[in-house]
């Protein structure tokens, strides 16, 4: 058992993780559901009385409770993995990435899952932290609903079903991602 836990505690390579993500999608299909995490944000709006401001939130949210249970599992999985399956070593990032981040003032790249300089409650009071955490989150929620899905709904479920709209959405994800990474992030990170 201990050996199994030791083995599972190593970082999982892409060829283990990728197939397991498709397994997640397939398991959901076999219990009659479709994989799409950002739907839970809309459901939360509906439960909170969002139908008062838009008929977009006027739907039978009780049929979406399963997805809230699914993401509760994702929270639990995060807790289990970081409590009992924690790897001892930093994330083996590409050297170019580490060097570039040092130039932008992000030290210790890969020692944690997130750059702790930005992802902390203290940082929320700085302009840089506010932009990353608050504006970033807002764009994710707005964009995911506008595009009708996020990485799980479009990049995984949609592309697996060979949906052209999902391909357009994924191309959009990359246009936005590249604009941010090359043009905006160097400015935001040095705010």
């Amino acid at each position, binding site marked *: 058992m201990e050996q199994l836990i030791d083995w599972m505690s190593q970082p999982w390579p892409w060829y283990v993780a990728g197939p397991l993500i498709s397994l997640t999608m397939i398991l959901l299909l076999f219990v009659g559901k479709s994989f799409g995490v950002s739907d839970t944000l809309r459901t939360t709006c509906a439960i909170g009385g969002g139908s008062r401001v838009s008929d977009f939130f006027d739907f039978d949210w009780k049929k979406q409770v399963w997805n809230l249970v699914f993401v*509760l599992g994702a929270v639990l999985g995060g807790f289990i993995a970081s409590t009992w399956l924690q790897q001892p070593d930093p994330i083996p990032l590409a050297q170019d990435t580490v060097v570039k981040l040092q130039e932008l003032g992000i030290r210790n790249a890969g020692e944690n899952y997130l750059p702790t300089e930005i992802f902390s409650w203290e940082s929320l009071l700085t302009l840089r932290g506010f932009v990353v955490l608050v504006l970033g989150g*807002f764009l994710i929620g707005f964009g995911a609903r506008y595009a009708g899905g996020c990485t799980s709904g479009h990049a995984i479920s949609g592309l697996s079903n060979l949906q052209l709209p999902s391909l357009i959405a994924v191309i*959009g994800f990359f246009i936005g991602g590249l604009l941010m990474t090359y043009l905006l992030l160097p400015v935001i990170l040095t705010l």
Partner: protein
Amino acid sequence: MKYLSYLSIGTLFGIIMTKSQAISWFRIYEMFRFDAFHMYGIIGSAVTLGAISVYLIKKFKLRTTAGDPITFTPKNRSIPRYLFGGIIFGLGWSLTGACPGPMYTLIGGGFSVILVVLFSAILGTLAYGMLRKRLPH
């Protein structure tokens, strides 16, 4: 019992996302800089196996555990909503380094400040709902 299955599949997902480091801001930054194959390998192999599975499910008309047909809803044909929505999502994804799945998993992993990102994402969803009729779709 049904809910237990959703919970366990979600738990599996959270463990995969953590152990593959797909929840890491650094991995997303590295991906958008094309510095490593890791994230492309994850998404590429997930989609390849996913496409084969969906093809087989359709070909053999497989059914759910409850005995119902497995159905796929085709997405509406259009360009603006997917392109513009996608770009906005991509800006947010690369800024926070987390898409909605990893947000939940990071919160479970003890990064409580991600609750702020999640709350902002809910506000973003609400804002979309209010502006929806004025946006090109």
